[in-house]
């Protein structure tokens, strides 16, 4: 193509670019309506008719120059479930929530952690003033967090008081098909009024896991609230003996020093070791609710209540006030922070966790003691995916640090939170 030199090609490109930007700028500053009525505007000017916009102030009572602010209006009046309490409530059999009957004992040289679960139909408050007809384990959404140590036997006696048949399906390595908690196997669904069934699972592998009802239709039984977290603490002795099970590193890379590091990390993760007391641990189950049955969610949250870990009130100018029931999560900057993060969002493919002004280490599924992602500020989880987020705020100034789903839609629909570093 001899006639088309680089110079001319460049000039043509520049002209096209200019035309494009001109058109875009024009479109942005002129509304569709004005374009449609542009002839008309000229006409009205000629007739001396006043502009249709202007000095209107009737009906506007306050003159504050604010843009308004997103966030649910009002506080939570129903106190049956408190996301702040749930955040740090672990049921170990030895201690846990009053509403969850539990026990711990030895049987054939194995620690057994026993829990009583019930399924009930109950209205829960998901945004101030907005009720959702939930199906819930022990009357709460998410269900109680079960915590055991690797190799323990978890025994869950399940009784159904709801209208539908339900199950409990655990995301642990389970070698007995009858205990899988699906309609097609073992006891199948446990119907309302049927004799209670006792599920038994060995706590393995170490990590943060998920349990949920597996009745059909699946979507409905899940998004109505029948789900929760199982945390399996790593056993430091077992880590020392089988270090390769707890890292993605190749066995040739596993040095004695790494093993010692992993054993130390395992102790901080195991609730029966003193090292664990130094860590501030939290459970966040990302969930969502379809209130109008259109297959899309109206409310998103971490631990059910929209904006529960947000600020109570804001004037839209950066002046925040904690609310009675909507308030930031207060954390001690000298302690290490650990979030057991579970994605129970229904209808959306993924959810995410994003921290402001902070990077974290992430352990996918929590099954390793070395991070699967290092120094990231956003992590994505598919439905039922979970992981451990480890944060260090020791060099941050005290104050509010936001964290939220970085699907901005989810954030503005409730999954928006703050850490208040003190």
């Amino acid at each position, binding site marked *: 193509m001899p006639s088309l030199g680089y110079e001319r090609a460049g000039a043509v490109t520049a002209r096209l670019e200019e035309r494009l930007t001109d058109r875009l700028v024009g479109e942005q500053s002129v509304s569709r309506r004005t374009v449609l009525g542009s002839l*008309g505007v000229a006409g009205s000017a000629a007739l001396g008719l006043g502009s249709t916009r202007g000095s209107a102030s009737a009906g506007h009572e306050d003159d504050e120059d604010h843009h308004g602010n*997103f966030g649910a209006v009002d506080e939570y009046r129903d106190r049956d479930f408190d996301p702040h309490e749930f955040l740090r409530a672990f049921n170990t059999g030895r201690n846990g929530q009053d509403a969850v009957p539990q026990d711990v004992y030895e049987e054939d040289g194995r620690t057994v952690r026993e829990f009583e679960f019930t399924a009930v139909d109950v209205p829960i408050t998901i945004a101030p003033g907005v009720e959702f007809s939930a199906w819930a384990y022990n009357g709460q959404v998410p269900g109680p967090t079960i915590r055991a140590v690797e190799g323990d036997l978890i025994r869950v006696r399940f009784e159904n008081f709801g209208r539908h048949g339900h199950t409990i399906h655990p995301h642990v390595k389970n070698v007995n098909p009858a205990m899988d908690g699906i309609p097609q196997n073992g006891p199948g669904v446990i119907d309302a009024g049927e004799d209670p069934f006792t599920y038994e699972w060995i706590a393995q592998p170490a990590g943060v896991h998920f349990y949920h009802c597996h009745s059909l239709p699946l979507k409905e039984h899940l998004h109505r609230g029948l789900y929760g977290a199982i945390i399996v603490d790593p056993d430091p002795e077992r880590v020392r003996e089988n270090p390769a099970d707890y890292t993605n590193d190749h066995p040739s890379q596993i040095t004695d020093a790494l093993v010692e590091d992993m054993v130390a990390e395992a102790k901080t993760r195991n609730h029966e070791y003193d090292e664990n007391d130094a860590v501030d641990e939290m459970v966040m189950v990302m969930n969502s609710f379809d209130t109008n049955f259109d297959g899309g969610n109206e409310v998103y949250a971490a631990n059910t209540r929209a904006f529960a870990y947000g600020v109570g009130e804001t004037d839209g100018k950066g002046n925040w006030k904690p609310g009675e029931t909507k308030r930031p999560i207060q954390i001690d900057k000298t302690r290490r922070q650990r979030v057991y993060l579970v994605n129970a969002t229904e209808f959306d493919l993924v959810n995410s966790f994003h921290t402001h002004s902070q990077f974290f280490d992430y352990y996918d599924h929590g099954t390793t003691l070395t991070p699967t992602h290092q120094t990231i500020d956003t992590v994505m989880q598919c439905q039922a995916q979970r992981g451990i987020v480890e944060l260090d705020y020791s060099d941050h100034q005290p104050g509010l640090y936001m964290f939220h789903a970085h699907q901005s839609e989810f954030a503005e629909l409730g999954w928006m939170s703050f850490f208040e570093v003190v």
Partner: protein
Amino acid sequence: MSDESETDGGVVRETDARPFGLPRWVSLLLPLVLLAVVLGVFVVGSPLPETGGQPLPDVSITHTTIPDDETVVLHATNNGPDSVTISQVLVDEAYWNFEVRGAGGDRTLAPMESARVVLPYHWNPGWDLEAVLVLSDGATFHHAIVAPSETPGLTLDLLWTLALVGLFVGVIPVALGMLWFPAIRSMSDRWLHAILLFAVGVLGFLAVDAGFEALELAEQVPSAFEGTALVVLGVLGSLLLVQSVSAWRQGRAASGDSRASSGLWIAYLVALGIGLHNLAEGLAIGSSFALGRVSLGAFLVVGFMLHNVTEGPAVVAPVARGERPALGHFAALGVLAGAPVILGGWIGSLAYSPTLGAVFLAIGVGAILQVSWEIAGLVREGNGRLASATNMLAFLAGLAVMYVTDLFVAL
């Protein structure tokens, strides 16, 4: 036409003065008393078995006003039989702060109660918004705010603007149209009848057009107020009302009142019908202002002027025969037919609601229908054949002219 001789003039007949031996007032009240008793039994005793099922909440957002560039106001009405509580509001899929005003200080709307939901929202002119009311049970009610622009508040400026608009699109064209009077007067009966039929075509088109518009608006009327039924009632009501005025006039004429038998009566009736129609037209203009929905341009004004100038001859055609009325009558006819545009504009901008709009349109339709009937009668009385070829073509021309000029006025 006189039916004076056929009625009893309201004199009580003496037959069965004491049914069942009871005084007459007792027999009049008895059914009402029994009805009250039966209703009482029903309310207190609720004899029907439990029917099960719950009424669904039903809230409509009739319209939006935008008082300034930081505020959006949704006008909501509870249509359902139960109270509803607006717990949260979504704007473009985000929970937003809001205030409910006009519901007695809380966020709960009793059945048929209306309230304003005030959102502090920095909107962008021309960028659509989607607002959603979330009720306490999670039910949602959507409202799209298409191409938002500021609603002018109530100012003298606005009233003046609307008066000016009314003058241009209502009074002036009708007055101009009336200037055809001398020409119409000099016409033969045949052509006069053609002009009258042309006027009927004009009115017929207006009736159809306004009727559809009323039904369209009726869909926005909160369902608690039964929009469609309201329109039907409005049409029939005004039709019968104007008809009764007309029948009264005929009664007077038959009993020898010469004024009542003149064409001037019909001219006034036509002016009234057109005036009612123009009131609805003004309402549409005013409410478009109120909703910030008008770019009132040359097209619109020119369209309205062309549209309304044909209403002038319709008004004066009935007085083409006989003595020419005093000039004062012409002025009065012009004002009656044209000035309601101004009045409608003011009402529409101050107190817009789809309900009001639908009612006014329906009233206009009813009046127009009656007036068309009246003009047809005029032609028949003038020994004209209503369905002559000329007349039919004139009628068609009336429809066609209105259709063409209406193309300019698609608000």
